[in-house]
C-alpha cells in the first residue's frame, strides 16, 4: 500500500476494489436510512413524541428504503467474493445458522414495516405498537450486527479452527460492538440528509412549515456526527498499533482527510440549517456533499484496514484470473440501458405528479 488507493495494487485487484468500495458506499447510504429511520421511529414511539411529518415520511418510505438497501447490498456482495473469497466464505460457514438467520429476520422485518404502515395498527394497544416498531428495528440491528461480526471474524484467520470447534452461536470479539456503534451512530446524519430532502419536498407542497422544524433533524444529525467522531476514536484505539498506522499511511491518508473534511462540512451545514425555520437547499446540498464524501472516504479507509490485516498479495492471482473472464461489455451495455430506463421511470412519475399538483392548485382536482 505504497500509493494512494487503489493505485498501489495490480490492475485487476484495483478494478475490483474500486467497484467494491463504490457499490458498498451506495449500500451504506440506504442501510443508514433503514437503521436510523427505524431507530428514530422506535425512540419517538416510546417517548410518545407523537405523529409528525417526519415519522409519517419515514414510515411511508421505509419498505422502499429496505428494498433499496437489500438491492444495493447485492453488488458489493458480488465483489467481496471475488476479492476475499476464502475469508468471506469461511466466516459465513463458521457463523452457520446465525449467518443464515439474517434472511428470515429480514423477511420478518420487511413484513413489520408494512404492519407499521397499515391503517389498522392505529387501533392497536400502545404496547403492541411499540412491540412492532421495536421488533422491526431489532431485525435490522441484528442484521447489521451480523455483517459486522462476519467481517471481523473473516479477518481472524488464526482463530477459525477454534471458533469452528466451539461452534458457539455468537462469535465474541471486543472489536464488534464499537465498530457497530460507529455504523449506527454514523447513520443518523445520513438519514438527516435523505429525510431532509423528503421533508423539503413536502414543505414545497404546503404553505405552512411542517413540524418538526428542520432544527430537530439538524440537531439529531449534529449529535450523530459528534457520536461518530467519538466511536471512530474508540475503535481506532482498539486496533493494534501497526493496523492503526494504516489510517495515516500512503493508501488511506487522502481518504481519511476526505472523510474528515466531509464530517466538518456536514457539521457546518447542519449548524446553519439548525437556525432556519424552513429547509434551505443550500445547507441541505452542502450536507449532502459532505455526507457523500464521508461515506466514500470511510469505505476506503475501512478497506485499507482490511487489506492490512490479511495477506492481500496472495490474492492477486485470483483477481487476475477473474479479470480474465469476459462479459464486462455486456454489463456496461445493459447498465447504461437500464440506468436510462430507471431515469425514465422516475421522470414519468415526476412530470405526472407535478401535473397533478398543478391541477390541485388550480382547483381542478380536489
Amino acid at each position, binding site marked *: 500500500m505504497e500509493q494512494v488507493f487503489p493505485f498501489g495494487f495490480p490492475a485487476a485487484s484495483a478494478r475490483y476494489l474500486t467497484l467494491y468500495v463504490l457499490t458498498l458506499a451506495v449500500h451504506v447510504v440506504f442501510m443508514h436510512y433503514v437503521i436510523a429511520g427505524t431507530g428514530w421511529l422506535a425512540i419517538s414511539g416510546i417517548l410518545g413524541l407523537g405523529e409528525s411529518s417526519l415519522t409519517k415520511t419515514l414510515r411511508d418510505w421505509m*419498505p*422502499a428504503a*429496505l*428494498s*433499496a438497501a*437489500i*438491492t444495493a*447490498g*447485492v*453488488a458489493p*456482495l*458480488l*465483489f467481496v*467474493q*471475488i476479492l476475499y*473469497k*476464502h475469508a468471506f*466464505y*469461511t466466516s*459465513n*460457514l*463458521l457463523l*452457520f445458522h446465525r*449467518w*443464515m438467520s439474517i*434472511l428470515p429476520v*429480514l*423477511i420478518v422485518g*420487511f413484513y413489520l414495516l*408494512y404492519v407499521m404502515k397499515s391503517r389498522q395498527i392505529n387501533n392497536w394497544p400502545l404496547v403492541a405498537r411499540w412491540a412492532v416498531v421495536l421488533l422491526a428495528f431489532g431485525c435490522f440491528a441484528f442484521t447489521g450486527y451480523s455483517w459486522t461480526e462476519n467481517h471481523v471474524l473473516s479477518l481472524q484467520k488464526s482463530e*477459525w*479452527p477454534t471458533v*469452528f*470447534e466451539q*461452534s458457539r452461536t455468537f462469535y465474541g470479539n471486543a472489536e464488534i460492538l464499537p465498530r457497530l456503534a460507529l455504523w449506527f451512530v454514523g447513520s443518523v446524519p445520513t438519514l438527516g440528509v435523505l429525510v431532509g430532502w423528503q421533508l423539503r419536498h413536502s414543505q414545497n407542497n404546503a404553505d405552512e412549515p411542517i413540524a418538526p422544524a428542520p432544527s430537530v433533524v439538524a440537531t439529531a444529525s449534529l449529535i450523530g456526527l459528534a457520536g461518530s467522531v467519538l466511536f471512530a476514536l474508540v475503535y481506532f484505539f482498539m486496533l493494534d498499533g501497526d493496523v492503526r498506522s494504516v489510517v495515516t499511511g500512503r493508501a488511506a491518508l487522502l481518504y481519511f482527510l476526505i472523510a474528515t473534511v466531509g464530517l466538518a462540512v456536514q457539521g457546518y451545514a447542519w449548524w446553519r440549517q439548525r437556525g432556519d425555520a424552513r429547509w434551505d437547499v443550500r445547507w441541505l446540498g452542502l450536507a449532502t456533499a459532505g455526507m457523500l464524501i464521508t461515506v466514500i472516504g470511510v469505505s476506503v479507509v475501512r478497506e485499507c484496514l482490511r487489506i492490512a490485516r490479511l495477506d492481500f498479495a496472495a490474492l492477486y492471482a*485470483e483477481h487476475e*484470473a*477473474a479479470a480474465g*473472464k*469476459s*462479459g*464486462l461489455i*455486456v*454489463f456496461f451495455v*445493459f*447498465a447504461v440501458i*437500464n*440506468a436510462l*430506463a*430507471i431515469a*425514465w*421511470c*422516475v421522470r*414519468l*412519475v415526476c412530470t*405526472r*405528479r407535478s401535473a*397533478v399538483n398543478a391541477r390541485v392548485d388550480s382547483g381542478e382536482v380536489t
Partner: protein
Amino acid sequence: MDAGPLPYYPINDFGPAMKGMVIGGLGIFHVFIAQFAIGGGMLMCYFQWLAMTGRVPLARKFLDGFFKFLVLVSFVVGALTGVGMWFTTIQISPRTIGMMVDEFHWIWATEWTFFCLEIVAGYTFYRYGSILTDKARLALLGLYSVAAWGSLFWINGILSWQLTPGDWIGSGSLAAGFFNPSFFPSLIFRTIVSMTIAGLAACVVVNLMLELSREEKTTLIQRAARFLMPMVLMPIVGLWFFSVLPEDSRDWVMGGSVAMTMFMTIAVGTSMLIGLYALVGLIGQRLYINGATASLLCALAFAATAGGEFVREGVRKPYTVRQALYSNSLTGEDVARLRQVGSVTHDPYPLENASQYPNEQLKLGAKVFRMQCSVCHTMSATNGLTHLTGTWTMEQKRLNIAQLQRTKSFMPPFAGTPEELEALVQLVTWEHADRPTSWPVSTDTDVLNRIQQWLDDVGTESGLKPGRLLAEAG
C-alpha cells in the same frame, strides 16, 4: 481452475438432513415466489392493456387491488430468498459458488442492473400507478415485466451451465457456457411456469375480491386463465430439455434413482393435472373456478416446482459443475493429488466432537467422511452410510468405496490414501456396531496394499459413461 493447494473450508453438519435437500427446500420457495413475481408482472401488463383498450374495463379494479401488493411482496421476498440461495450454496459448497462467481460475475452484475430496474419500475407503479395516465402505467408495467423476465434470462444461463456446460469445457468461452445446450429449453420452460403460477394466483385473488359480482369474477378469471394456455407447450419443451441432458442424468431420472424418478413423476404428474384442468375446464368449457379449486391448483403448481427443483439439484451428481467440480468440491486434478497426499492431511479444522471417537483412526475416518462424503450422505440418517453398507463385509466395503465411481456412477472417485480409506471403513463399521467405547486399530499392511491395488485399478477418472464424456469433450 484452482491449481494451488486445496482451499479448506469448515464443513458444517446439517444433522439428519442431506445437504441437497436443504438447498432444494429453500429453492422451492425461492423459485415459486420469484417466478410468480415474473408472471405476475406480465399478467398485470395484460390486464392494463385490457382495461385501457376498453376490452375489460373491470380489469382496472383487479390491477389496483390486492394483486399488485402480492407482486410487490413477492419481488422483495424473491430477492431475499435469492440471496438466501446464494448463502445456502456457500454453506454447502463454497468452492462451487466461488467458481460460478469467478466465471460469471459480469453476468451477475448484468442481472443486478435488471433487478434494480425491476425494483424501481415496480415501486413506482405501486406507489404512483393511481395518478398516472394509462400509457404511463402500461410503460411502467412493461418495464417491470421485461426487467423481471430479464433477471430470469441471465440467471438461467448460469444455472443451466452447471448442468450442461457444453462447449465451455475445453474452450472456456463465456458465450458457449451461457448459451449452453439446456439454456433455451429451461428458459422457455421457466417462462411458461411463471405465467402458469401467475394465472392461478390471479384466479385465487379474483375469488377473494368481495366487491365483484359472479359475472365480473367470471370475466376476469377467463382472462387470467389465458395465462395457462402456454402450458400446452410444456411436454414439447420438457422433451427438448430431456434430449439435451447428459445421458447419465437422463437415466438417473428415468428409473436409475428411485428418489429422482419419484420427484420427476411428481413434477410431471402435477403439471399435467393443472394443464388438463386449464385446457379442458377453464378454456374449453369456460368453467368457473372457485377459490378452493384455484388454491388447490396453486398448491399443485407448488408441488410441481418442488419436484422440479429437487430433480435439478439431483441430476447434476456427481458434479456441481459438470466435468469441472465434483459435488464434494474437489476437481479431477485434486482427486489425483489427494490420492498421494491424503484428503485431510492439511485440513486445519478439528472435529466438532472429537472425544466421542475411541481412537485416532476413527477420528481420521470422521474427517474423511466430512470432507468427501458428507455433502451427499449422513452417517446413519438420510442416505446414511451405515444403512447402505449394512449387509456388506469388510472387504466389500473396502472394494466398493475404493471404486466409488464404479459402485455408482453418480458418486465421485475416492480422493485419498489407502490409510484414509481404511479409516473410513473402520468408522462406518464402528458406527454400525453402535459405537462401542473401545475399537481396535486396523494396521494390516496387506489390507492397505489391496486397497491401493483397487484404487489403482479404477483410476481417478469419473465413473460416467466414457463414450458420453468423450462426446461431450469433443
